[in-house]
Each structure stands twice: as structure tokens, then as C-alpha cells.
């Protein structure tokens, strides 16, 4: 069975540009979350979507936005990129409710120059 897939795997942007990251959850998973992982740190929660509705937002500026599509795939958008946005962006899906068992993709490595 296919796991969580993310694209692109690596990308380089310059300050001020915007980026769109994509995620396909495991088939049957309706909950998708996005996390940012800076080098040497643990993942930090950005957004959670469940049944196409935003269900949670972490402490990130409005430059970060996301959405979930009818097929449960998701996009994370970041506008006006800053150097500090350089990180590994992880997408995770889960099967049910009240669970901390998340299935992570391999991430999108964003470098902002």
C-alpha cells in the first residue's frame, strides 16, 4: 500500500517568493496535518484538516495557509518567503479520531536563499 506521498521532495526559492507543497494521504485517511521541522528540532505543528475543514492551526503567521481537497489530498502554501522558512515540511495522515499515531511522508525540503 502506498504511504503518504509529498511533492516536491526538494526545492530552492528566494526571499519573497511563494511556494506550494502537496500531500497525498494514505487511502482511507481523512485527517491530514502539516508540520515544520527545522534542522536539529522536533516537528512543529502548522495545520490540521479533517474532512476538508481546518481543525487546528499552530503558531504560524498568516503567510502560511493550507487546504484539503475532496479526495483528501492537501496543499500547504507559504507566501513572502523568509530565510527562516527553510525547513523540512512534513505531511502526516491518520485514520481515526483521538489518535497520536500519525503516518508521515518523507517531507519536502525547502531552502530559501
Amino acid at each position, binding site marked *: 500500500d502506498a504511504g503518504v506521498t509529498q511533492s516536491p521532495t526538494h526545492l530552492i526559492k528566494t526571499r519573497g517568493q511563494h511556494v506550494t507543497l502537496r500531500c497525498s494521504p494514505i487511502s482511507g485517511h481523512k485527517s491530514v496535518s502539516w508540520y515544520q521541522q527545522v534542522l536539529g528540532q522536533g516537528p512543529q505543528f502548522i495545520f490540521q*484538516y*479533517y474532512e476538508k*475543514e481546518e481543525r487546528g492551526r499552530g503558531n504560524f503567521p498568516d503567510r502560511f495557509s493550507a487546504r484539503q481537497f475532496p479526495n483528501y489530498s492537501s496543499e500547504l502554501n507559504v507566501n513572502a518567503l523568509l530565510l527562516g522558512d527553510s525547513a523540512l515540511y512534513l505531511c*502526516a495522515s491518520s485514520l481515526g479520531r483521538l489518535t*497520536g499515531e500519525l503516518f*508521515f511522508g518523507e517531507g519536502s525540503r525547502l531552502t530559501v536563499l
Partner: protein
Amino acid sequence: EDQVTQSPEALRLQEGESSSLNCSYTVSGLRGLFWYRQDPGKGPEFLFTLYSAGEEKEKERLKATLTKKESFLHITAPKPEDSATYLCAVPDAYSGAGSYQLTFGKGTKLSVIP
């Protein structure tokens, strides 16, 4: 604000040398503590869920335990393939739908030398 602190930051072990990793947490009303393994360049992989003090879970050479203030990940007779960063996490919030929103610690980078 919920806090998760892991120690040590890095640990080097000889193959077969058992040890423990620590995860201390400050949360109000723990709804679970989760352990993940992360290999370089990969996303975290779920290992264990612990819900109540005294609970233990085992998987191969790993055993996770939970007290009221901390969790331990015990590694018995580790092998080089156990080398990875081990992350613990607690639920930060729950919206009433879908999965928990997790607060992760910084992780412990384990290196097992042959």
C-alpha cells in the same frame, strides 16, 4: 503551555550496550504520550502510544515506560540499525475531530557503533 524535554540530546553506544532515553513533560491532563523514530532525511515513524502511568510497551529491542512526569525508552542490546533520532510527543490540543495536534520534543540522536 505544554512542554516536552528530551535527554540526552545525543547518545553514542557500542553495539550491545543497553541504555535509556528520557522524555519529561509538563501537561495538564495527559491524553497520551507518543514515541517516534526518525531516520535521516525521512519523516518520523510511529513506535508507541502510552496512556497511563505504569504502562509499558515493547517492540523488539525497545521498551517504552510512562510515569506521571516522564517516559523512558529503554534500548536493550542495541544494533547499528537502531541508530536514529527518537522523538517523543504529547497532544497539545484536540479539535474534536481527526488526530491530535502534537507537541514534539527536540529528540535524542542515537548512534550505535559496531
